[in-house]
Structure formats: structure tokens, C-alpha cells
């Protein structure tokens, strides 16, 4: 059962393999019909599997090596991208990309976590786990956007801020805190998209937006399911339970009013079709931007304040 939950794509792979085997050998109309039949079954099965993902399976989907990353979205959605490097204090952090671009004729700023596709790139990007320099670069670009009054788009996809020695020495906590405070007070329109892993403070640091969108299979949480399991259950193996208990999926977050909208993914997830995913996201981004542009900057920043001000559930009564 546990293995089945982990490897939910196996039936899909098996079908794909059979189709491939059949296509490899010559045959008549029968064979073509058979392939077509299997192909239809594969589509249906994929839809079926992805429609019933458990929270833990979603956590696995968003770590899929073929998920589109920030630079993929930048290429598919924006033009004239100019990447900006460095925090002008210490270094450039490749785990966060930032820059200027054009979106449907409007100059905009973009900030996002960036993971690597192959091993070398993964290491260079530190698996999408930023160091303080990354957040300081992000803040620099946010302030640039603020100065010239350009909208800001951010893309969130990180396991979390890097828990390393140097990161601590250089003020990981301070860098995140400043990013949170800065973002909350920008007067420009901010549209955030959680595209994959929304890992804790390292994700939130660039996710304080007027509109927060989340991809259908993305997750967003205070700690990774493994981390939560290790601390509360003293057993990393309880990650599935932790994933369920923490309510980390897009529908959960919509219900808790943490995100504004769920962006649907194509069958088989965003990793199956980057172009299609970008097109779906495009509509959502455009709608959000249009909406935000019709509001005065002062009202926008106050509305953003109230949006986050409302988050959280507590009771009020006297006990003592």
C-alpha cells in the first residue's frame, strides 16, 4: 500500500511501455487500432490518477524533475527578459532568479525560485534553496520595481530557505524578514504564483502578494511533510500522515483562504505539458493584473495588508 502510494505513476508507465512496444514493430490496422485503444486508456487513466492524488502524492508531484521552473515560465510568458544578478552586498544566488521583462507590452519585474534540471544545474541552483543573498537580490529588484512603478510577478517553488552554516552566518532570518516587510509595503501590483513546492518561510518571503495563485497540484506548508513527521512523530516515515494533517494542497489552502485561486493543470500535471500550463496560467495572470491595475496604489497596499491581516483562526473568550 505504502509503495503504491509512492509510485502512483507506475500503471501509467506500464501502459506507455506497452504502447511503445507495439509501435516499435510493424503491423496492420489491428495493431493501429490496438495502439489507439491503449492510448485512449492511458489518457483516461492519467486523468483518473491525477484527479485523486493524496496530499502526499501531490508533494511528490511538485518535486517531479520535469515540472516547469521559473525560467520556463519566463520564457513562455514574458518577452525581453533581462536577468539581474547579485545583492550588491555579498554574492549572486542562483537559487533565485530576478529580472526585468515585458508582459503583453507592459514592462514588469519578475522574481522566482529556480531549480536545476540536470545534476550539475541542480547543484548550482542549490535545489532551489536560497541563501540570504537570494532574498536580498529579490528585495533589490522589488525596490527597483517600486521606484519605477512596474508590476511584480513572483514564482514560488522551493523546498525552503537553505539551512546551512554560511546562510546562518550571513543572516538568513533577517533576509527573509526584510523581504516580508518590504513586500507587504510595496505600492505596485504583485501577483504571486505557487508553481510547485511552497516550502515555509523560504517560500513566503517572496509570496506576499495582492493575488496569490496556486497550481492545482502544488503544495504550500509551514514545514515539509518529512520535517513535520520527524519532529512531531519522531519518525520521518510518517510523512504521509503529516502531509494529510497539515493541509498542504491547493484546495485546502483555498478553503483556508490563504490563496485566491487555483490554476488548473493539464492532464498529467504541469510537467506533462509546459506550453499548455503556461497558457492556462497566462489567463489567470492577465486577469489578476487587470483587476489590480484598476485600484489606486494606496488602496492596493491597504487591501494587501488586510488580506494578510485576516489570516489565521483563533478564538476569543476569557478563561482566566
Amino acid at each position, binding site marked *: 500500500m505504502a509503495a503504491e502510494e509512492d509510485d502512483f505513476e507506475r500503471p501509467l508507465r506500464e501502459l506507455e511501455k506497452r504502447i511503445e512496444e507495439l509501435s516499435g514493430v510493424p503491423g496492420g490496422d489491428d495493431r493501429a487500432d490496438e495502439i489507439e485503444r491503449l492510448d485512449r486508456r492511458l489518457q483516461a487513466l492519467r486523468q483518473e490518477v491525477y484527479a485523486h492524488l493524496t496530499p502526499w502524492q501531490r508533494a511528490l508531484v511538485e518535486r517531479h524533475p520535469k515540472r516547469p521552473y521559473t525560467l520556463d515560465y519566463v520564457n513562455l510568458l514574458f518577452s525581453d527578459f533581462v536577468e539581474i544578478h547579485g545583492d550588491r552586498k555579498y554574492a549572486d544566488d542562483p537559487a533565485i532568479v530576478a529580472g526585468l521583462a515585458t508582459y503583453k507590452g507592459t514592462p514588469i519585474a519578475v522574481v522566482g525560485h529556480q531549480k536545476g534540471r540536470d545534476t550539475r544545474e541542480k547543484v548550482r541552483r542549490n535545489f532551489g534553496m536560497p541563501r540570504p543573498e537570494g532574498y536580498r537580490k529579490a528585495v533589490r529588484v522589488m525596490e527597483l520595481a517600486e521606484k519605477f512603478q512596474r508590476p511584480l510577478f513572483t514564482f514560488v517553488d522551493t523546498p525552503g530557505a537553505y539551512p546551512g552554516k554560511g*546562510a546562518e552566518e550571513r543572516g*538568513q532570518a533577517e533576509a527573509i524578514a526584510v523581504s516580508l516587510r518590504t513586500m507587504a509595503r510595496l505600492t505596485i501590483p504583485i501577483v504571486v504564483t505557487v508553481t510547485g513546492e511552497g516550502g515555509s518561510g523560504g517560500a513566503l518571503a517572496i509570496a506576499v502578494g495582492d493575488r496569490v495563485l496556486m497550481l492545482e497540484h502544488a503544495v504550500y506548508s509551514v514545514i515539509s511533510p518529512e520535517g*513535520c513527521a520527524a519532529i512531531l512523530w519522531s519518525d520521518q516515515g510518517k510523512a504521509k500522515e503529516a502531509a494529510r494533517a497539515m493541509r498542504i494542497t491547493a484546495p485546502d489552502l483555498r478553503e483556508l483562504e*490563504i490563496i485566491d485561486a487555483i490554476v488548473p493543470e493539464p492532464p498529467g500535471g504541469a510537467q506533462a505539458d509546459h506550453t499548455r500550463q503556461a497558457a492556462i496560467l497566462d489567463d489567470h495572470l492577465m486577469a489578476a493584473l487587470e483587476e489590480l491595475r484598476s485600484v489606486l496604489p494606496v488602496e492596493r497596499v*491597504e487591501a494587501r495588508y488586510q488580506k494578510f491581516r485576516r*489570516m489565521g*483562526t*483563533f478564538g*476569543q473568550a*476569557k478563561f482566566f
Partner: protein
Amino acid sequence: MEIAWFKKIRKPKQPVEHKRIQVPEGLWVKCNGCKEIIYKKEVLRNANVCPKCNYHFRISARERLSALFDDARYQEVDTDIYSVDSLKFRDVKSYRDRLREYREKTGLNDAIINARGTIGGLQVMMAVMEYGFMGGSMGSAVGEKVTRAIERALDERIPLVIICCSGGARMQEGVLSLMQMAKISAALGKLHEARVPYISILTDPTTGGVTASFAMLGDLNIAEPKALIGFAGPRVIEQTIREKLPEEFQRSEFLVEHGMLDFIVERREMRDILIRCLKFLMNAEALAAFAPTSAAPSSTAGSDLVPGAAASGSENVASSQPGRTREPLPFPSPLVARNKITSSPEVS
């Protein structure tokens, strides 16, 4: 086969054990720093600091409030906010049961106390975290109370002091805990723009989401000696980099060395230092010049402190200072009217 003399030697030992139990409990304490056994009264006289090695014992939020406010007098506010188990979270124990246990154990609603009083004659809003309540972890209730403390300071134009003592975000509230970081930082952004002073005091331990939000956003960030301060906990870092960390890593002194803290203050001197800093930070001219115009108009300039204003009935008055207090914010305040409030207390 039994040997008679063996038994004889064992017998007299028991009364010794018995005698040890008879020593009044808590007369002596073992120092976590130098591991010496010290006379407890001596530690108490020394502001809960080890007289031998200067180790700062962890103290409760109430002890801190008493130690810092003038004449140990303060008025507690926002006492009625408590946590609810909105996710129906259950690990090895249910969150609901955990909350009930800690409420009974600490006599507090959650891991924080908000209070108003004077320090060196100056009105100050203070929020103090209580480590004894689930490791000072930050859930929605703690986040709400910190935010209210900030909004009160902003509204009344009085300085804010927060004493941090927390393991970070409360996992049992999932992403709701995480969002408290954004909520609090946003409020601090307003405070910052309005030039209202904020001093953050970091005590042992201050880690995770608390460090990565309000603990590091003070106009001054000051710490007690040898406090563990960091974003990730040392164990997580050790697992990540696969090496043992030195003892001094992530301690106050280490952070000062790396430029992350303004200075370290010993507990006995904390009050005096606060008074000195507040004198610099509290500037009526700056406050007037940067009074926000966009937000709800505030009728509470520093000058209209109502002499003799009585505390509202709903507030818990803990030795409040008459003549120095003012009406608390009406609740629900316009800013928080849309908060999801569960009015039915499921705990008693």
C-alpha cells in the same frame, strides 16, 4: 547463598536516600551552564542568572514583565485570545488536548502576554513570549496578539518592545502559522513607516519563523548572553551539512560577531539599557512628521493620554498604573473585524 555481612552494609544506605528527599524541593538548582549546584535564592537575587558562570536561566513571561516595567506594574491586554484546533490536527496526541494541557500548566491562554505600562516613565507596549507554552511556538493566536501589540503601538504612538522566546512556527496549525509571519511583518512595515520605535529582545531560544519575521525587524535587535538565535535549528543544519557544529554557533556572541545583532545585554542591565535606548528612539517631532495619512485617522496622539482613565472591564488589570493607562482599543477593532473568530469556547 546469602552472606550476612553483605546485607548489613546495604541497610544503612536507605536512610540516606530518605534524607535527600526531605530537603525542601527547589532549594538548590543545577546550573545548565557550569553544571554547579547553586543555592536557589542566590540565583533569584541575581535576576535568575548564575552567580558563578553568568548563565541566564530561562524565565517566565510574567517575570520578565515585572522586571522591566516601572515598579513591576503593568496592565495586561488582549487576554482573551486563544488558539483553536481549526485543522483538527493530530500527531501522537491531538492538538486540542495539547492546548488544554498547556493552558492548565501555564495558566495562560497561549504562548504570549501583551501588556502596557511605563518604563522609565515612558508609556510602552510590550509583548512577551512564554517558552513554557508549547515551546513558545507561534500559531494564529500568538500571531494575532503580536499584531495587536504592533497596532496598539501604532495607534497610540508609543514604543513597542517584544521579547522573543520561541522555537518557531507552530506545526499543528500548518500554513496558518506560516502566514502569521507575513501578517506580523506587514504590521511592522506600517510601524516602521510611521517612525514608531520597536525594540526586539531575543532570548534563549529564538529560532525559525519568529526569527525570520519580527525578531530581526527591530530598530534595535538586542539579545541576552549566550541565547540560541537562528533561522534553522542546529540539528537541521548538522543533518544538512553533515558535520558537527561548534558550541558557540548561533549563540548571541556569534551573531554579534557576524553583524546580525546590535549588542548583548545582561539581564540585570536590560531595564537601564531599554530606558537609554527609548530616550533616543522616542522623538515626538519625528512621529508627528510621519504620521500616516492614508490609514484610519488616529485620535490618539501621544498628548491625549487621559489622566485617570479607567481600564475597560474586559481587560485584565494586573497592577495597572492609574493615570498612565488609556482606554484599550474597542474590540473588534475596525482593522480586525473580518477575522475569523470562533466565539464558542471549546475549552474550559
